[in-house]
């Protein structure tokens, strides 16, 4: 098998080969490092690369597996972590040069769980500064580039995680999602991205943006891979004050390919928002396919959906400014100017505004939970447009002109407010060949139903099998491919 094909194997395929000793973790890691060397100048997915450490870990994994000490599906699998997951001894910048030399002395819980599962860390991934953005643009470490078209945004904030996974620089990545930061880049790069229920994965050791809306989660190329990662990283952690002490299922048990009788609610409010016609067409086709697969599709109304975005923003801005207030006193001129504006505007949100928003959030949460008395899932678009060009400030969607940040997070923010488990899967491509995402959400802690529907949809389509043609977009002389 050639290097490109081996790097594009899913985690599920790769782990079967590694377990059977048909493929060596050393060769797998070497192939990914070669690919990183070839494409990283064009993609800029990583802030910190760890080639020597990764090769050392790969040799250790190989030794363990040869000795019969196979740890499970992630053993020997090359991964990337968004540069907000602290890893002992590896610098953690959070996307800001202010922290260019910050090296944590402990592991975040997610990083530790992945290490214990035998995953091999290739490096720390680029992001919008402090996760405060939706495009994958970063003035300190350079913009991330969408593998499907290099002058397009990856989406953010976990843009490096998405570009690295979509380009097979790594087999999977972990991101965080406060207003869509896993789902937006996953949708724009043609990937599966899961924001699990708030409290399902530990936030311990992750640079916060908005404590009450931050969700860590996996970015993968298939739904099965997503379930495999969830098995390794989900679970109660007493070091995270919001961690849920709740039983964990084997998430792969959700992959039954059966959705007959599942009730899927499509909020009519989604299509009252500005939406690109190609995106709407693809998403409506995806909903139709769920129906053909046996799901019962119902049009519903989501109370307070339109208001929920302002509620989410109020809480996010107040919490982000509070977290970064000390930093702003000393380093405001060193911040990304867009991040600086957002953080400074947060000072004008009063305690009364914040608490009113948290009261409104409770009402929205109650009303949203009520929807699940009628349906098992909510479904709709992930992002209203395909990836825009890097540097775009505003986008035109139909007759509406919107700032790029609110446009890209239009459909995702409400699910951060409720904490519902929400997945995006690829559901088509624009005429220009840019990926389109389809989003499904379940009731709290019902990742199983979300994964079940996502898997059934994925298995009935081939969108996830397409690959970006990166080598045709870069100069072979420069990148050696």
């Amino acid at each position, binding site marked *: 098998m050639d290097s490109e094909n081996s790097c594009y194997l899913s985690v599920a395929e790769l782990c079967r080969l590694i377990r059977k000793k048909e493929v060596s973790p050393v060769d797998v890691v070497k192939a990914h490092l070669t690919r990183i060397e070839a494409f990283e100048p064009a993609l800029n997915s990583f802030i910190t690369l760890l080639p020597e450490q990764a090769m050392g870990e790969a040799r250790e994994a190989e030794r363990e597996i040869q000795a019969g000490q196979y740890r499970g599906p992630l053993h020997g699998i090359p991964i990337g972590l968004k540069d907000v997951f602290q890893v002992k001894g590896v610098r953690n910048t959070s996307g800001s040069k202010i922290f260019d030399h910050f090296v944590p002395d402990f592991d975040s819980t997610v990083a530790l769980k992945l290490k214990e599962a035998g995953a091999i860390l290739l490096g720390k991934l680029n992001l919008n500064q402090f996760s405060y953005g939706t495009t994958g643009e970063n003035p300190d470490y350079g913009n991330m580039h969408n593998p499907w078209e290099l002058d397009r945004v990856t989406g953010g904030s976990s843009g490096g995680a998405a570009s690295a996974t979509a380009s097979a620089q790594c087999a999977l990545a972990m991101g965080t999602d406060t207003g869509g930061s896993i789902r937006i880049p996953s949708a724009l790069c043609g990937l599966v991205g899961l924001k699990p229920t708030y409290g399902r994965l530990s936030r311990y050791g992750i640079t916060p943006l908005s404590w*009450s809306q931050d969700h860590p989660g996996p970015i993968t190329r298939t739904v099965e891979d997503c379930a495999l990662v969830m098995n390794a990283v989900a679970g109660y952690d007493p070091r995270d004050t919001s961690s849920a002490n709740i*039983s964990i299922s084997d998430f792969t048990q959700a992959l039954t390919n059966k959705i007959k009788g599942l009730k899927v609610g499509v909020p009519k409010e989604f299509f009252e928002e500005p939406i690109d016609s190609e995106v709407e067409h693809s998403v409506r086709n995806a909903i139709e396919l769920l129906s053909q697969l046996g799901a019962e599709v119902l049009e519903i109304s989501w109370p307070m959906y339109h208001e929920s975005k302002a509620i989410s923003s109020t809480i996010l801005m107040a919490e982000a400014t509070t977290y970064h207030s000390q930093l702003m006193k000393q380093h*405001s001129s060193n911040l990304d100017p867009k991040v600086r504006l957002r953080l400074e505007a947060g000072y004008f949100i009063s305690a*009364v505004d914040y608490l009113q*928003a948290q009261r*409104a959030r409770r009402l929205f949460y109650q009303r949203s939970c009520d929807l699940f008395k009628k349906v098992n899932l909510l479904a709709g678009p992930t992002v209203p447009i395909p990836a825009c060009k890097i540097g775009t400030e505003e986008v035109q969607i139909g007759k509406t002109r919107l700032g790029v940040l609110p446009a890209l997070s239009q459909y995702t923010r409400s699910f951060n407010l409720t904490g519902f488990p929400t997945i995006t899967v690829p559901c088509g491509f624009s005429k220009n060949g840019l990926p389109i995402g389809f989003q499904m959400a379940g009731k709290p802690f019902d990742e199983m139903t979300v994964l079940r529907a996502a898997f059934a949809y994925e298995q009935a389509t081939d969108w996830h099998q397409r690959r970006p043609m990166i080598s045709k977009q870069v100069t072979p002389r420069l990148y050696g491919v």
Partner: protein
Amino acid sequence: MGEDIELDKKIFLPMAKAFGLDTRDPHGEELYAYTRNVFRDFKVTEDIDLTDLEPMATSVLPKE
């Protein structure tokens, strides 16, 4: 600040200074425009009836 949706610049400037923010232009003007937009967006939440509702806390999602 929810009630002062238009956020008069005469109110904005002393507040920004009290927060220790740089109000010199062009940054001051940019921040003023940005903050005004934020306030305008918040207006949609003003008519929600919140009677008898307590604020949602961070760890409130139902447990098993």
